C-alpha cells in the first residue's frame, strides 16, 4: 500500500466508518460484500435508517397543513431539513431549495418551467457530450417543443470538456448551459465555475447536474455562481425518492409551476388560481416527508465526517485504484481526466462488461456494467458499454485489491 494512503488511513478511520453501515458486513455467495456501485446508489448509515424509523414510528404527520401537534412538529423538521440542504450547497436562502424526487425530476422541472418562461424558437441550449440521459433528454424534448436548438460541447480523449469549443458555441441565442459537475460515466470533474462565468458573460443561465458531486465534495453554489444546482439523496447516503434543486430566487419567482394541484396554490376559485411563492409553487402534493427527514440526517452525518475529509480520502482511493488497474494488461481505463472523482470506468480486451459484472459478482464484488445512461458518452469513446467501479468513503484499499485480483481472474478465464 502506498505511503500516502497509509498516512490518510491514520487520519481517516475507515474501519470505524464501516461500522456505521449495517449492509457492509454482509456476505455475497460466501464472500464479503465489496460494494463499488456508489455512483448508482449509496448505502445507508445506521443513523439515517434509525432516524427514518423513529420519525415514522413516533413523529409522523403531514406537513404545511394541519394545526395540530404532529403536523407542526413534522413541518418544523421538514423545513429544518431544507435549511440543511441550503447550508450543504451554500445557498443563501432555504427558499431557494425545491424538493423533487431526485435529479431526474429536478432537471425535468427546470427544463419545463424555465423553458416555458425563457426559451423560444431560434434559441439555443448547450449540453456536453458526457451528460447522463437525465441531463440530455429533457433538453431534447424542450428544444423540439419550443423550436430551439441543442448544441453539444465536445470532449477530448481524456474525457475533459474542450472549453475553446464551448466558447464558440456560446452566443446571444444561448438561453441555458446544462452540464454535470461530475460525469457519472467517466468521473470527470468539470470546471463549472469557468463554464458558468463564460455563460453569464454571453447572457445565458446555467444548470449544474450535481448528482455525482454532492456526495463527494464541498459545494458552494454562490461561489460557483450557477443558476440551478441539482442533487439526489440516494446518492448521498439518504433514502431514495428524494432530491432537489437549488435555484436563484429571481428565477424561481419568474417561473410557472411544473406540476399543479394541492399545496402549490395561493387561492383557487373555479375560474382562476393564483400560485404560491417558491418553493411551494414547485412542490405540489404531499411531499416525500419521511425521505426528507432521512436526507437531513444524512447531511448531518456527512458534515460530522467533513466533506473535505471525505474528498481527501476518496482521492487517495482513486489514486490507489487507478494505479492497480493501470497495471493490468488488457485493461483500458475510459476517462482519464486530470480532475476526477473516485470512479473508474474500464474496458477489457478479453471480456464484455456484462460478463465482467456477472463474474465479479461471483467474488461478492458489485460493480456496474453498461452504458450508465450515457450512450452519447459511450459512442464518443467507441465502446457499447464499460464496467465501472465507483467508490465511497466507506471503501477500503483492500477492496480495490480484491477488485484487481478478480479482474485478473476474468481475463485469465477468457484467454
Amino acid at each position, binding site marked *: 500500500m502506498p505511503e500516502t494512503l497509509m498516512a490518510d488511513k491514520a487520519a481517516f478511520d475507515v474501519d470505524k466508518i464501516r461500522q456505521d453501515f449495517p449492509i457492509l458486513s454482509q456476505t455475497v455467495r460466501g464472500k464479503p460484500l465489496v460494494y463499488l456501485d456508489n455512483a448508482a446508489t449509496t448505502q445507508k448509515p445506521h443513523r439515517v435508517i434509525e432516524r427514518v424509523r423513529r420519525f415514522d414510528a413516533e413523529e409522523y404527520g403531514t406537513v404545511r397543513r394541519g394545526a395540530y401537534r404532529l403536523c407542526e412538529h413534522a413541518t418544523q423538521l421538514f423545513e429544518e431539513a431544507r435549511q440543511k440542504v441550503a447550508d450543504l450547497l451554500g445557498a443563501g436562502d432555504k427558499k431557494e431549495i425545491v424538493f423533487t424526487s431526485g435529479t431526474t425530476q429536478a432537471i425535468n422541472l427546470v427544463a419545463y418551467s424555465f423553458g416555458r418562461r425563457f426559451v423560444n424558437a431560434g434559441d439555443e441550449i448547450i449540453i456536453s457530450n458526457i451528460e447522463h440521459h437525465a441531463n440530455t433528454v429533457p433538453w431534447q424534448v424542450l428544444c423540439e417543443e419550443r423550436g430551439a436548438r441543442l448544441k453539444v460541447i465536445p470532449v477530448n480523449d481524456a474525457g475533459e470538456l474542450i472549453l475553446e469549443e464551448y466558447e464558440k458555441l456560446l452566443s446571444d441565442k444561448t438561453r441555458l448551459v446544462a452540464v454535470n459537475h461530475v460525469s457519472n460515466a467517466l468521473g470527470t470533474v468539470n470546471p463549472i465555475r469557468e463554464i458558468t462565468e463564460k455563460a453569464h458573460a454571453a447572457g445565458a443561465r446555467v444548470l449544474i447536474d450535481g448528482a455525482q458531486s454532492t456526495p463527494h465534495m464541498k459545494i458552494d453554489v454562490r461561489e460557483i455562481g450557477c443558476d440551478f444546482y441539482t442533487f439526489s439523496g440516494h446518492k448521498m447516503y439518504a433514502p431514495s425518492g428524494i432530491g432537489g434543486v437549488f435555484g436563484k430566487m429571481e428565477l424561481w419567482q419568474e417561473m410557472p409551476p411544473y406540476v399543479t394541484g394541492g399545496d402549490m396554490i395561493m387561492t383557487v376559485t373555479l375560474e382562476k388560481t393564483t400560485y404560491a411563492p417558491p418553493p411551494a409553487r414547485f412542490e405540489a402534493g404531499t411531499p416525500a416527508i419521511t425521505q426528507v427527514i432521512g436526507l437531513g440526517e444524512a447531511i448531518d452525518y456527512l458534515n460530522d465526517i467533513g466533506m473535505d475529509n471525505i474528498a481527501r480520502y476518496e482521492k487517495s482511493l482513486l489514486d490507489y485504484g487507478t494505479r492497480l488497474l493501470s497495471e493490468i494488461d488488457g485493461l483500458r481505463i475510459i476517462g482519464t481526466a486530470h480532475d476526477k472523482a473516485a470512479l473508474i470506468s474500464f474496458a477489457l480486451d478479453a471480456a*464484455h462488461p456484462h*460478463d465482467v459484472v456477472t463474474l465479479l459478482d461471483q467474488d461478492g464484488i458489485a460493480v456496474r456494467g453498461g452504458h450508465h445512461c450515457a450512450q452519447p458518452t459511450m459512442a464518443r469513446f467507441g465502446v*457499447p458499454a464499460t464496467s465501472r467501479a465507483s467508490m465511497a468513503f466507506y471503501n477500503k484499499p483492500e477492496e480495490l485489491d480484491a477488485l484487481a485480483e478478480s479482474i485478473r481472474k476474468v481475463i485469465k478465464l477468457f484467454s
Partner: protein
Amino acid sequence: MSYDNELYQQVILDHNRKPRNFHEMDHATHQCHGVNPLCGDDITVYVDVDGASQTIRGVSFTGSGCAISKASTSLMTDFLKGKTLEEARVVFSEFHRMILGEFDPAKETNHLGKLKLFVGIREYPSRTKCASLAWHTLIGALDKKTEGVSTE
C-alpha cells in the same frame, strides 16, 4: 482459482473465443438483424432453408456482443443444421422457457441437447436476454421481419 458457477462453462467460453459459422451467407433464404439496446449486443442471423422439405440447410451469423450472446448464437447455428422449421420452433420455445426458469430440462422431456448448457442463466435474470437474442433473431428471420428484432 476458479469460479463456482454453472454459467461460464468451458463449452461456452470456447464458442465465445471461436464462434462457429461466424460469417455472412450470400445464399441465405432468410435473414434478420437483432439488437439488445440495453447492452449493445448486435447480431445478424442468416438462414438457408430448403423450401421443399422445410429443412434448415445452414445457419450463420455476424455481429458483436458479450460471451453469453456470442456463445448462444454460435451453439444455435451448429444445433439447427438439418432441423426442420417446426423442430426449430419447438426448441426455441423450450430454450426460452428454460432460461426464464419455467422449463427444467432435468425433469422434463426435451429436445435441447447441448443447449441445456444455458440452464444456469435462470439464476441471472439480467442476462437472459443475452442468451435469447440469437433465438429471437432466428425467429424474426423465419417470420421475415424486415425491420429487425429487439429484446426490448
